[in-house]
């Protein structure tokens, strides 16, 4: 079957309420979905709002919902997603829509803070470096999950986030897990209390949509399973004000 020289692209316009608008975009070789959106905004409709930055798969800013699945548009080749020459582009799910393809990610980052996803150490610049063997079990666990750049794809793919507005979400919990395994961190007792409970790791149903979609091949499900174990153990030891 010959490939059509144009793509039929449906793009979300508006806010939470809005509609899909159709555009016809010339199809090129090695074209990415970000190329398509950029073409639309530059040539067809300058009012289209969207986010991007590095355009080479490093920053995660261009994350959107393409044909129902959250992905980085700069790393999604049109050939991979255009069934019958059609693409549907919408903003990331589970986040308030600012306009068109732009979402408000402040809630996502607020939950990161709620999960105590910031490193807290006890040393100062006057102290010597911490020595952490990379092959140690704890460091291996942390390293498996450390590459997260906070793009929101996992959060957007998670059904529990959609069903429970207060669920901290895969990214925040994943980051908490990496810090739990960081031997330099001093905040872990409070952190574990923050992530245990109904709005935390225990709400995860192991759908694994986050793991399916993560562009950095991280498995937040594995990290959250680790948190479940750690929280249960701490609760049994009475180290937790748990539910």
């Amino acid at each position, binding site marked *: 079957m010959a490939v059509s020289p144009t793509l039929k692209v449906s793009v*979300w316009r508006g806010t*939470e309420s809005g509609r899909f608008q159709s555009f016809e975009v010339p199809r090129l070789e090695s074209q990415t979905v970000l190329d398509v959106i950029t073409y639309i905004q530059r040539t067809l409709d300058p009012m289209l709002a969207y986010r991007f930055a590095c355009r080479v798969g490093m920053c995660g800013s261009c994350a959107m*919902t393409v*044909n*129902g*699945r*959250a992905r980085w548009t700069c790393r999604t080749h049109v050939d991979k997603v255009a069934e019958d020459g059609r693409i549907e582009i*919408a*903003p990331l*799910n*589970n986040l308030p*829509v600012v306009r068109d393809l732009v979402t408000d990610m402040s809630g996502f980052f607020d939950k990161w803070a709620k999960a105590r996803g910031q490193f807290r150490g006890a040393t100062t610049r006057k102290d010597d470096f911490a020595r952490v063997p990379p092959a140690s079990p704890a460091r291996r666990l942390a390293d498996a999950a450390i590459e997260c750049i906070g793009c929101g794809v996992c959060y*957007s*793919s998670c*059904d529990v986030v*959609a069903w429970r507005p207060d669920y901290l979400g895969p990214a925040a919990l994943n980051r908490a897990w990496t810090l739990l395994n960081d031997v330099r961190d001093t905040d872990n007792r409070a952190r574990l209390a923050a992530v245990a409970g109904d709005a935390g790791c225990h709400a995860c*149903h*192991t*759908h*694994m*949509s986050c*793991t*399916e*979609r993560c562009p950095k091949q991280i*498995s937040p*499900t*594995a990290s959250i*399973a*680790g948190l*479940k*174990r750690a929280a249960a153990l701490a609760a049994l030891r009475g180290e937790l004000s748990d539910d």
Partner: protein
Amino acid sequence: MKSDFRARNHPAYWAFLVHRVSGVMLSLFIPLHFWALGQALHGEARLESFLRWSDQPLVKFAETALVLLLAAHLTGGLRLLALEFLAWRDWHKSLLALAAGVALAAGLAFLLNVV
């Protein structure tokens, strides 16, 4: 905006769906099961008449379905316990296939013995 089925179309999600649906259906069935057994309080004859009623093919079919649901919920649950309590391993991905296989085997065993 909420995601649709396209975002969910992968095995681990189906496993969740089976587990949830089977759990809800079992929750509806088990009270009936308790009630039926409680009929024995009124004497053996009551229980016997219920059992004879349940000899119909349609009921037997429903019973097999229930055994399947129970087995599916059990194996799915064991899979979850393994995923949550054992340190993460790569072969965990195969747990789903294993769970499905065992559940089907149990359902089949029941069907073959009841007809």
